[in-house]
C-alpha cells in the first residue's frame, strides 16, 4: 500500500490503482485481457414463456414438459420461467396505486417464481426443480453437475433496483432479459426463448394474418424496422450487442415441442436474432 503524493489517497498496487473507473481509455483497455471464461459452455438456457405457454395449462405445458424431459437425457438445461398473466395483473394494480417501477419489478418476481415451481413439479421426475433465487447464481454450476437441469425464475434480481424505463412504468428487465443475462454470464451454449408464435414477424401475427416471419435478423436491422411490438423484452436489443459470450438467441414456438428438440440440436426452427 502506498500514499499517492498528489491526491494523498492510499492505494494498493494493481492494474487499476489510482485510476478512475469512469475513465474512457482505461475502460476500453480492460477489454485487452484474457478471453472471458465460459463457466457452463455445455448448458443451454431455455426460457419458457409465462403467458404464451405456462398460462395455457396442460394443453401447452404437458407436451412441452415431455419434450424438456427427453431433452434432459442429452443436454444440460437452465430453464427460466416467465411470470405471465399474474405479473400483468399485479402491474395493473401497482400502477393504479402509484407504485414505482422498482416495486413493480420486486412484485413480479413472485409470479415467475410461482411458475418455476409449477414447471418444477412437472419436471420433478427428472430431478429438475425450481432453485431459490437467493442461492441460484452462486450454486448453479454445482447443481448442474448433479442434475441434468435446473429451473429459475427468469427475472434478474433487480427488484427495487430496477431501472426506470424511458416510456411508462413497466419494469424493462423482465424474464427474457434475466434469462439472457444468465446465459451471458455463465457462457452458455445457446439461449432459446419458447413462445407461442413461430418467431418474429414483421407485424403482430395475431392482428395481421398477412404478417411475414423473419427467419434471421441482426439488432441494427431490427431497430431500423421500428416494429410496433416485439415477442421478447425490448431491452435485449441493448444487451445483445454488448454480449461477450452469447451473441444470438432463437425464438421458437413451444406449441410445437419438437422444435425445442431441434433448436437444442442447433437447428434453425424459429427466428434467430444476432448481435451484429
Amino acid at each position, binding site marked *: 500500500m502506498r500514499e499517492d503524493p498528489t491526491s494523498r489517497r492510499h492505494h494498493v498496487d494493481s492494474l487499476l490503482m489510482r485510476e478512475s473507473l469512469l475513465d474512457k481509455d482505461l475502460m476500453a483497455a480492460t477489454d485487452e485481457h484474457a478471453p472471458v471464461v465460459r463457466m457452463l459452455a455445455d448448458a443451454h438456457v431455455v426460457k419458457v414463456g409465462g403467458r404464451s405457454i405456462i398460462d395455457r395449462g396442460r394443453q401447452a405445458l404437458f407436451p412441452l414438459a415431455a419434450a424438456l424431459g427427453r431433452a434432459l437425457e442429452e443436454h444440460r438445461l437452465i430453464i427460466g420461467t416467465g411470470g405471465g398473466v399474474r405479473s400483468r395483473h399485479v402491474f395493473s394494480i401497482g400502477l393504479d396505486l402509484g407504485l414505482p417501477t422498482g416495486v413493480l419489478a420486486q412484485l413480479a418476481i413472485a409470479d415467475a417464481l410461482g411458475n418455476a415451481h409449477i414447471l418444477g413439479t412437472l419436471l420433478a421426475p427428472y430431478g429438475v426443480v425450481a432453485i431459490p433465487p437467493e442461492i441460484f447464481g452462486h450454486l448453479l454450476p454445482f447443481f448442474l453437475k448433479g442434475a441434468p437441469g435446473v429451473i429459475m425464475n427468469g427475472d434478474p434480481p433487480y427488484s427495487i433496483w430496477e431501472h426506470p424505463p424511458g416510456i411508462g412504468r413497466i419494469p424493462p428487465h423482465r424474464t427474457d432479459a434475466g434469462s439472457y443475462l444468465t446465459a451471458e*454470464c455463465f457462457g452458455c451454449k445457446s439461449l432459446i426463448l419458447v413462445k407461442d408464435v413461430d418467431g418474429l414477424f414483421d407485424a403482430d401475427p395475431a392482428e395481421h394474418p398477412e404478417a411475414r416471419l423473419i427467419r434471421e435478423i441482426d439488432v441494427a436491422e431490427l431497430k431500423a424496422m421500428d416494429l410496433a411490438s416485439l415477442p421478447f423484452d425490448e431491452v435485449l436489443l441493448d444487451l445483445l450487442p454488448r454480449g461477450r459470450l452469447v451473441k444470438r438467441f432463437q425464438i421458437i414456438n413451444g406449441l410445437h415441442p419438437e422444435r425445442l428438440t431441434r433448436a437444442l440440436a442447433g437447428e434453425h426452427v424459429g427466428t434467430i436474432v444476432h448481435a451484429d
Partner: protein
Amino acid sequence: MNDFADDYRPDQLLSDLGKRLVSGSLTDRQLLAQTAGPVQQLLPDANVVKIGGQSVIDRGGKALLPLVEEIAGNLAQHQMILGTGAGTRARHAYSVALDLGLPTGVMSVLGTFVSMQNARMLHYLLAKHGIPFIEPVQFPQLPLYLVERRAVVFFGMPPYTFWQQNPAVGRIPPHRTDTGSYLVSEVFGARSMIYVKDEDGLYTADPKKDRNATFIPRITAGELLALDLQDLVVERAVLELMQNAQHRRSIRVINGLVPGNLSRALAGEDVGTLITAE
C-alpha cells in the same frame, strides 16, 4: 349463494389498462405510454447519502471519522439512507478478474463484497447511535429503522451479481455503487441524493491529474453527457437513468473532506455540484 358471489364480475375485476396489460404486448409503446402517471413518494423525508470508497473510506480515520461525527450530528434533523462505495480493494479484485478473464457478472459479485466490507465498517462506527446495516433482503425494515433510528447503512452495489449487464466498453460492471445508491433514492422518492466524494464537485477534467480543470457548479445530465468528458464524477448510468426518473431528478456531489459540507447539503444549501435531469 352469498353476496360475494353475486358481486363477482370477472370482466370488471381489471381496469381498462389492466385488461390491455393482460392481453397486449409489454413492448407496445402505445400501451407503455398509458402506464405513465403519478408515482407515490414512498420515503419523501429520507436523504440518500453515498460515501465514496476510494475517495473517502479508503483514506481511513482522517477522512471518515469526522464525517461519521457529522452524520451523527445530523440525525436529529435528517433521515439518512447511507450507502457505501467499494474503492481500492474492488479495483484490485477487478484487476485480478480481468487478468483471469472472469465475466462482468462475477466482477459484480466481487465488487459487492468490498462495498459490503465498507458498509460494515461504517455501521460499526455508527453502532452507538443504534443505526443498523441492512442487506437488500432487509430493505422491508428500512422504513421502521428510519423512523426509529433516523438512519440505516447499506452497501451501494445494486444486487445484480451474476445478472450485472456488460458495459458498452470494456468489462468493468457499469452499474456500481453510484448507480445502486441512486436507484434507492429514485424508487423511494427520496428527498435528495448526495454523493460524498473527495473533490468539490464536477470539473472539466480530473483535477487530480489536470491543473487546468475548471469547476462546474451546476449542469444538466444531458449537457454533461454531451461534453463527452474523458472522466466523470459519477457513473454514466446515473446520468442516463436520471433522465427517465419519476422523482429523483437531481443529484449533488460534494467534498466530504471539508467539514460542514454534508450538513449544508442536507439543509438544501447549494454546495458542490448539482446535476439535474433537465
